[in-house]
């Protein structure tokens, strides 16, 4: 069964049809790319998938469950986590606490337990610290665990965002332009990390990216979006050689 199945998804803002008749099927363990020129509606699709916007039409099935129109936190609990195009870290919290905030729903104790410092508090906090450090290690961030998140260099902030998303233990990870603003070396390293995350965590990943080296390097299948509609979809190499796609990016 497909992990994510989207059919006839659409949203209008007033009179503007931002995304129309969008569909997509992602199998478990796949590395899927969503590409398209600026303003094509890629981030809007992410926002629809994560419940930031409520779709006007269509439906979204995650692992066979209908999650259409659910709220962001419910969708996260169903198993979709994401990163953001413009990095959204908890900037005043430490790197470690950013990841621990991601663990919020998986390692729990009540507010009262926290205030009274009952034994459970120490036990759960210890487990959280261990789990968070494990995740930080994957992204080579364990040295910076006590830094304030906003003091990290840009590339590491992007990685921390992925670590935080993974902390919520998702089935599907959405990455919105993970390589934006990175130099070629950092991008290469990021590609390795994304592949590692997929293999190590058996993660299914959907990503938006403009860096074609990254897209052709790691994505197995692609969907190309243009003016809110699907231009084409299929195997990466086929799609990237499609004259329609080249025209959409470069113009006539």
């Amino acid at each position, binding site marked *: 069964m497909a992990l994510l199945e989207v059919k006839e998804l659409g949203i209008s803002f007033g009179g503007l049809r931002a995304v129309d008749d969008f569909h997509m099927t992602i199998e478990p363990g796949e590395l899927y790319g969503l590409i398209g020129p600026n303003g094509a509606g890629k*981030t809007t699709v992410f*926002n629809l998938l994560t419940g*930031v916007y409520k779709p006007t039409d269509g439906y979204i099935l995650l692992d066979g469950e209908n999650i259409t129109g659910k709220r962001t936190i419910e969708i996260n609990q169903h198993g979709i986590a994401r990163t*953001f195009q413009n990095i959204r870290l908890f900037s005043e919290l430490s790197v470690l606490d950013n990841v621990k905030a991601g663990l919020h729903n998986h390692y729990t104790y009540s507010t009262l337990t926290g205030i009274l410092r009952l034994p459970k508090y120490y036990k759960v906090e210890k487990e959280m610290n261990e789990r968070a450090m494990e995740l930080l290690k994957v992204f080579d961030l364990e040295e910076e665990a006590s830094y304030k998140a906003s003091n990290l260099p840009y590339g590491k902030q992007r990685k921390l965002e992925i670590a935080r998303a993974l902390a919520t233990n998702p089935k599907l990870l959405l990455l919105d332009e993970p390589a934006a603003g990175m130099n070629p070396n950092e991008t290469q390293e990021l590609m390795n990390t994304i592949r590692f995350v997929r293999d190590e965590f058996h993660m299914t990943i959907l990503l938006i990216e403009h860096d074609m080296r990254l897209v052709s390097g790691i994505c197995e299948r692609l969907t190309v979006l243009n003016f809110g509609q699907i231009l084409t979809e299929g195997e990466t190499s086929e799609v990237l050689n499609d004259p329609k796609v080249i025209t959409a990016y470069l113009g006539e």
Partner: protein
Amino acid sequence: MMGFISYLVNGISLGSVYAIIALGYTMVYGIAKMLNFAHGDVIMIGGFVVFTAVSGMGLPPVIGVLISVVVCTILGMVIERIAYKPLRGASKLAVLITAIGVSYFLQNVALLIYGSNTKSFTSVVSIEPLSLADGAIIISGETIVTILACIVIMIALTSFIKYSKSGRAMLAVSEDSGAAQLMGVNVNATIALTFAIGSALAAIAGVLLCSSYPALTPYTGAMPGIKAFVAAVFGGIGSIPGAFIGGILLGVIEILGKAYISSQLADAIVFAVLIIVLLVKPTGLLGKQIQEKV
């Protein structure tokens, strides 16, 4: 019925004062994005200057008002230059606390000069009251002047902002000060001008307020200042027509509440209406809805 009409007129009159103060509040908020808590105290200073000029030095009221406007305009610009300008780019809270500091400062200067005793203010208006419906409704000269002043100010301010170069610069700065600067607008001068206009309006409001309610103390400005702030939020802070509508409505609600419900609860009613409006329209009656982009 006659009672209701005269309450309504009084409400519009008080509302006009709130509207004039709220205009200053809203302009400063729109352009400097700060809550100028000291605005109410400029009103009080405006009142004391007229008091000194007219009752103390025996000058004609018109001259007194002019002096007061000039003094407050300069005061507003000086406050902006000394206290607020260094904090441009600082956190909103820091600016708010500074404004509170300025408010304490102005109150205590007035306290040192005039003491805490209530001064009785002689009205600057010498127009005969208007008698309607065979004397069933009497509208005082102060009321007439206040309402007229508010209308004139509203029209003048709107045309100034719409048609003059500086007015359009204000609009540009309030929309996006960075972009305005890049387009050659002198942002600092525009902000200073805004404070000048806001403070001049506060002086006029002070004179009108004290003419209708002639008790003057160093704390006279505080509550009207808060009410005008409420009026500005009520109408949608940053919006000039909003401040006007908010001010008038607030004045009417306050006077009618006092007359028909409870004089002690009048303020509570005003605040309750504000809360209800904001819960229905979270950015006020005419405020712009801003949605965060993800």
